[in-house]
């Protein structure tokens, strides 16, 4: 039922309407052109609406239509491969409808209404279903099997279930109480989708990137923050994560970033190949793009749109990774809307609820048992862009209080051509403890020790470097010179990884373990040799040591490593003989 009211006042994107009795956050359509907006304040019989589009030319007295629904996304087959704006309007459809510029008042369905999907039911008449129960399956893309679920708030007995080709609006199931279910469901973006149970994350997100997996692992279902100063290789890091993480689905939210940069992402992503299946990566990717000059309210919504889509796939039992780039722009959108509402500002003009909103968002990550009994997860990786690189500003600080992993991209390392340029001293992960069980079982019982020792050494190195800068490395005692050399090996052999090398781009845990073990072995043997009187110059110039640097590029890693290690033992044996 449509309830009509009229506009009372227009002041920029904030419009006051009268005559409808909306609920908070209901979506309303404003003016003759039906501009989309959201109710953000109710005062007596008037309501304040934040409009997602430009309001020029809109007059008091124009009609307002209430939808009675909060801002929602359409969930169903067809989400994969889509490129949408912040309120789920497909950019391609917008281009077809209005050309190269986004005009206002155009609505576009989030899901394609024409396309027919082959629906295979998994329930029969008489089955009792409840919210989240799986009704049937649709092969959405080559490797995504889409489970059609009963919407969370619906339950009953199946009266009729169909099979065959349907579009997302056609009824595929009728319950005995007459409830009709199609393949599409709508869900309000600002609230999380219900789950049966939240679980503790116990497995790492395997990314095949040594510095991430080995040093600062994020749990599957965990949260991580990544600051992105310019020239630090953020894009490559994000693409590596998208390509290699062992998640089934990638959701990428471009929130308030530059148009030309977004164009780069939109151009590059479709060309990436999923290395595991050899299929286009887009087949398991959802892209949301809302650039800085697109309406600010839609930017604010984009992050919620993205996470709701991620939750929907999580409910099917998939592991989803979500990247939000950048949450700082999102926070700025909140600041802007808050100032339009003349709310009392908090720190640096950000609204007082900034911290609450950020934590609500990150809390939607996690490992869960969904209503249909499947285990799924969402891993959230949020980019922050602190102004002037100052980490003490409110968005970064509030984010760091919530997330458990921090990958400190460092432009200085990038300038030194150390890639991935993640600083090993300022990064951290709080999941090491929670994941140690998994590591002991799946990687090696001494993994934690190896890792800890390597981190310890790197810490020592930074202290030693200070001395070296003053007095030169020759003035250090020999054992400390050796420590520096081992650290150089950890940095160059282990931490550095070439994203563009066919073998080195992905490094399985087993290989990471063996590499670290080999470096540690060298360290042990070198220390022993040093104690028994061998010259440091000889220890650090062993042929096998240089060969160790190159084994990570070998196709047949195991054989190569074995022969290097055998050679190393021989060489040390000769040294020790003197």
């Amino acid at each position, binding site marked *: 039922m449509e309830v009509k009211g009229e506009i009372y006042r227009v002041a920029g994107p904030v419009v006051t309407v009268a005559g409808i009795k909306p609920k908070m956050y209901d979506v309303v359509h404003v003016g003759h052109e039906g501009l989309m907006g959201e109710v953000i304040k109710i005062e007596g019989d008037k309501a304040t609406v934040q409009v997602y589009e*430009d309001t020029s*030319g809109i007059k*008091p007295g124009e009609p307002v239509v209430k939808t009675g629904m909060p801002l929602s996304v359409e969930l169903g087959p067809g989400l994969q491969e889509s490129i949408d704006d912040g309120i789920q309007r497909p950019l391609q459809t917008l281009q077809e409808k209005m*050309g190269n510029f986004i005009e206002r008042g155009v609505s576009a369905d989030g899901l394609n209404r024409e396309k027919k999907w082959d629906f295979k039911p998994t329930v029969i008449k008489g089955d009792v279903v409840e919210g989240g129960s799986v009704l049937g399956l649709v092969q959405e893309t080559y490797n995504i099997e889409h489970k059609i679920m009963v919407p969370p708030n619906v339950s009953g007995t199946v009266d009729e279930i169909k099979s065959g080709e349907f579009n997302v609006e056609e009824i595929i199931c009728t319950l005995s109480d007459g409830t009709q279910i199609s393949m599409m469901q709508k869900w309000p973006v600002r609230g999380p989708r219900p789950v049966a149970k939240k679980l503790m994350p116990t497995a790492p997100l395997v990314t095949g990137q040594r510095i991430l997996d080995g040093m600062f692992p994020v749990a599957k279902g965990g949260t991580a923050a990544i600051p992105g100063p*310019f020239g630090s290789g953020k894009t490559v890091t994000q693409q590596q994560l998208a390509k290699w993480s062992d998640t089934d689905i990638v959701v990428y939210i471009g929130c308030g970033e530059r*148009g*030309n940069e977004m164009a780069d992402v939109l151009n590059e992503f479709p060309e990436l190949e999923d290395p595991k299946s050899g299929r286009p990566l887009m087949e398991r990717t959802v892209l949301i793009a809302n650039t800085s000059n697109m309406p600010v309210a839609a930017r604010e919504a984009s992050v919620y749109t993205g996470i709701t889509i991620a939750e929907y796939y999580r409910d099917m039992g998939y592991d989803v990774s979500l990247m939000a780039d950048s949450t700082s722009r999102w926070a700025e959108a909140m600041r802007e809307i808050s100032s339009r509402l003349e709310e009392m500002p908090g720190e640096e003009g950000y609204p007082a609820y900034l911290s609450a909103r950020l934590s609500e968002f990150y809390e939607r990550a996690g490992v869960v048992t969904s209503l249909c009994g499947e285990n799924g997860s969402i891993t959230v990786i949020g980019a922050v862009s602190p102004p002037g690189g100052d980490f003490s500003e409110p968005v970064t600080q509030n984010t760091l209080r919530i997330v458990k992993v921090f990958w400190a991209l460092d432009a200085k390392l990038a300038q030194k051509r150390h890639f991935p340029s993640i600083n090993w001293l300022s990064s951290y992960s709080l999941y090491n403890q929670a994941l140690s069980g998994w590591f002991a079982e799946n990687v090696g019982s001494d993994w934690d020790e190896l890792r800890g020792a390597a981190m310890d050494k790197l810490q020592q190195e930074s202290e030693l470097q200070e001395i070296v800068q003053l007095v030169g490395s020759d003035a250090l005692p020999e054992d400390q010179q050796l420590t520096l050399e081992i650290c150089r090996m950890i940095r160059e052999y282990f931490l550095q990884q070439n994203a563009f090398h066919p073998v080195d781009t992905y490094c399985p845990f087993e290989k990471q373990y063996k590499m670290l073990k080999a470096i540690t072995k060298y360290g042990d043997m070198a220390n022993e040799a040093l104690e028994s009187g061998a010259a440091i110059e000889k220890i650090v110039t062993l042929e096998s040591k240089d060969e160790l640097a190159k084994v990570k590029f070998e196709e047949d890693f195991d054989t190569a490593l074995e022969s290097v290690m055998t050679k190393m033992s021989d060489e040390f044996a000769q040294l020790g003989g003197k």
Partner: protein
Amino acid sequence: MTKEYKTIVDVAGPLIFIEKTEPVGYGELVHINMPDGTSKRGQVLDTSADMVVVQVFEGTGGLNSEAGVVFSGETIKLSASKDMLGRILSGAGEPLDGGPQIVPDKRVDVNGAAMNPYSRMPPEDFIQTGISTIDGTNTLVRGQKLPIFSGAGLPHNEIALQIARQAKVPGSDEEFAVVFAAMGITNEEAQSFMADFEKTGALERAVVFLNLADDPAVERIITPRMALTAAEYLAYEHDMHVLVILTDITNYCEALRQMGAAREEVPGRRGYPGYMYTDLASLYERAGVIKGLKGSVTQFSILTMPGDDITHPIPDLSGYITEGQIVVSRELHRKGIYPPINVLPSLSRLMNSGIGEGKTREDHKAVSDQMYAGYAEGRDLRGLVAIVGKESLSGRDRHILEFADLFEDRFVRQGKDENRTIEDTLRISWEILSDLPESQLTRIDNKYIDKYHPAHQQKAE
């Protein structure tokens, strides 16, 4: 809709409040007939059934409740036509050069719409500005927005003019145009811009919008939008490559703050409105290349940093929207170097997609990295020399120190009319790099050293 209202109830600063009107659209253009027979223009800021708030462009001097207000029924539009080329217009789009009104081919809303990111083409065509510090180390590409961060009393205007004169895509003779928008600059500055345009014949290919320091501040909010609308029209309707020069963004932001204060808005950082990021984005983001269209809009704005402070909200927010910045340095200016561009804090985010084989030259990136590193180290060493003296430096460090001087003297310094091709720029780069021992050129691949290093070329001969 030519009803004239005589119902002004309040006048406050640049705002007038009118009651008992028919419904008026937000953002509508308003004509105000003054009691003395002259007229003014304004724009609707806030409209409700009870009260309409209008911001008057020419200021509210002489206004009282006897003035009549006519609402035009449409938002502010630019009369766009190819005839705009060669014309000088006011900040609100009225002819200032004594010429006739522009016969519109199309009337376009000045606010513009956001470009669909899906329609954008990632910029990658190299633009040669003839200035080594830009072409060599902070390359500009077509469709980029690259502002000059400058300070009061620095020669940013000369740099902008030199770029406007010299910018071209090597090896192409496609149609190009310059759209110049002055916001709150002095009459003197405007005159010198005009004189230069006329002298070099650039005016024929330019559209000029002038809002001078004594013009109303409110008009300044419209001026860049007029200019960008003109630029988009020329680029996307007439396939031209348009270079937009906006000067000075700081004056624009001051006007924005002034308007915010007049509207009694809650101020953000340093009194600037909280929506300044989005407002600036709505200007800067109007640059780019569209898939399937020939034209392009490239923005080169000038921004004077108050107190040379790069963390001030205006440069800070700008830096987050634009694709880099060119920083003009007072220190180099004092040394008498023109153009005093400090390459270290300068940056072009799109540089890598515009350089390399087939665009500039294969060795461009390596050479630029090497010079960057050398100059950065050299400047650090200057600090050290001041403490410990040159004698205590190692031989290697002395080379680097000399390199920094050479870099400023040969690479940065150039004449105001010196138009260096990219080959010239790279040749100079190699000449100064060859002053360093070859073992220190660690960022350059040996194959490029063999091919381009002057010492090797002499050997080959």
